[in-house]
């Protein structure tokens, strides 16, 4: 009940004080560009997550840079081995912070993953935290450049 009331007041607050009233001035191009890059990195991460869940490895590697710093060959080998050992994956990401610098953006993520064993179908859970580094290329692509910490892939 208390949570419902809080949500109700949050909605009322948003309606009584329309967001457009809070906005002030026009953001400089650099700020707009930074925001757009944050969105692009978040979308790229979601695309990778969805492709990985769908076991669409061709689609997954469309979002990975050939210069992937932990070794693109290793990642391909790991996923090929994984494809033989697990049949399905569910993965949840909770992003905490995104920072942008030039042609790169980093997103810090806590992840939870559930895998189904290929031979027995039994599910297993794992979790961890990682920083995903994306690179914005000249041809408007957003590619995974690095994973620091505990990789979910």
């Amino acid at each position, binding site marked *: 009940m208390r*949570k419902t009331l809080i*949500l109700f007041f*949050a*909605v009322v607050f*948003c309606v009584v004080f*329309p*967001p*457009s*009233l*809070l*906005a*002030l*001035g*026009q*953001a*400089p191009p*650099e700020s707009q560009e*930074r*925001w757009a890059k944050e969105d692009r990195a978040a979308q790229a991460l979601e695309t990778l997550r969805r492709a990985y869940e769908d076991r669409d490895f*061709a689609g997954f590697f469309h979002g990975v840079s050939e*210069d992937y*710093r*932990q*070794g693109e060959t290793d990642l391909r*080998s790991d996923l090929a081995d994984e494809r*033989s050992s697990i049949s*399905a994956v569910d993965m*949840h990401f*909770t992003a*905490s*912070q995104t*920072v*942008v*610098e030039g042609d*790169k953006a*980093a997103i*810090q*993520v*806590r992840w*939870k*993953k*559930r895998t*189904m064993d*290929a*031979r*027995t*179908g*039994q*599910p297993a*859970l794992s979790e961890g*935290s*990682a*920083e995903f580094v994306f*690179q*914005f*290329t*000249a041809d408007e692509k957003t590619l995974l450049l*690095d994973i*620091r*910490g505990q990789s979910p892939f």
Partner: protein
Amino acid sequence: MCEVSQPGYAAETAKPDQFSKFPGLSIHGENSFAAEMHRTGGAGDKTILRPGEFLTDILKLKIDQTLPYGWTSHTDIHARRTQDPQINKRRDVHLLGLTSEFYNKTSKLTFGNFFGDFSQYTLGESLEGFQAAHKTDRFEVKGVAGISQRADETRAFERQVYGGRAEAQVIDNKTIKDGRLGFNFAGAKDDKGSVDRDFGIRAAESRVGSINSHAVFFGKSTLDSEMAESWTDEDTRDSTLGRNVGTALRVNNQTQWTKKAKTKLLYEWVTPRFDTLTGSAVSDRVNVTGKTNYKWNKALSMDSGYRIQYNKLNKSTAEKRTYLHVPNASISWAPSSEDWKLQDFFSRLFWEQRRRFSDDANSGQVDFVANEIGIEDEFKAQKINWSSGVTIRREDDDLQKANNRLTHEAYFGARTYRSWPGTEAVPSLRESFIYDGYDKAGGRDLRYRTTIGLDLDFKHGLKLNQRYSLENSRRHAQDSDALRFNADVGLEYQIPKLKGTTLKISYATTDYAHDMDTQSFSEHNLRTELICKF
């Protein structure tokens, strides 16, 4: 290496007299209120979600202020308050990020959270601290001092990071274009006083220096390289451990020989004792990769490549040297829609082999080899986009014959776009089959999945997306069959009289029915979110 050229930091600055009431000030952001209800059933230890109701409030605020003499300040605040203990253990407001920047066309000062970016081997991670940078078309210098953050939010220990980078264009003529030379240095030291030190985690310290270069020869061949040296103390509290000194080298070359032919080459050599705490490298590794692409004509092209990797370099602690050889080739055919009745036709035939073997293997023995051959097609007919593919994969494991298998994968998909007054619809269907046959009396496993999607756009800011999938697994092993159902339905409505306000309602469920009840579960997530962009 493909990098976006950014000569300076401020392309265009807002004019000071742009706003009469608050000159040069802009405040924008996003506030989202979300309520989630999680329900689970069956084996509780198999569910990702935790049952309960949770409210989450996320605020992103961006404040820009034009300053005198062409300077601009930018402040970025990102905070979250949630009742979900899987995200935050406490219910207080959690400041996820706070960054303040002051910049003009060539210089930038950053305080707070930022991404430290020097070079691959020296620094490439998020930091909390201070950065000063100056950049022109021909010169860049950067210095950082800060604390490295653990990727999780409950940061348990701190690592002090410092370093600098300088890069200059040293040559630029018709033969060698944009020839650059850079020097990078980064040091990192674990804080011995941090909590986790008591639990046996080592207090490492490392310093890495590198020289990087970039050049374009005759406008056709791009060469990037970096050579680095690292000095690392694995645990500064243990005087019996010596200092590790290692070297790393990487060379990238990309050449467009003619309009039809191009190659890409990579050589990387990282010694076993090379260790970088703030950069990225896989130690004890040699990697050689070559790729070619040749376009026969407008429709036909061919790709081929070969990767070789091995370890156990000088002073390695590995017991044996393991090699990985990965040759691959593919032919793509994309005839013009004018010459072929199937529109936007694309077909690709590919082959890849992964061969792993060690220097202690018996004569003629290959530890593991996998061959994969397949074809994939896409085309458009009757206003429907069709796609299909077949892959056959053979795995041969000389060490464990029980792992030998022959896998067939096939998929078929269709997607179309339909439009009526006031409504646009994108229905889709995808069927996939995986058949695993095992050599050593392992039997055969079959899995097939059907996915149906329907995206509806009712215009006026109202959208409805739906996706349902059903996967059936029939396995040889006893009591291992399973049925898995996923549904994902999302409604999005941009409230017309509240500019920038969007209401999102979504429902996602996973239901897993396994032969063994202890492995079956279900979970449901109902989420309502109000997003206010301003």
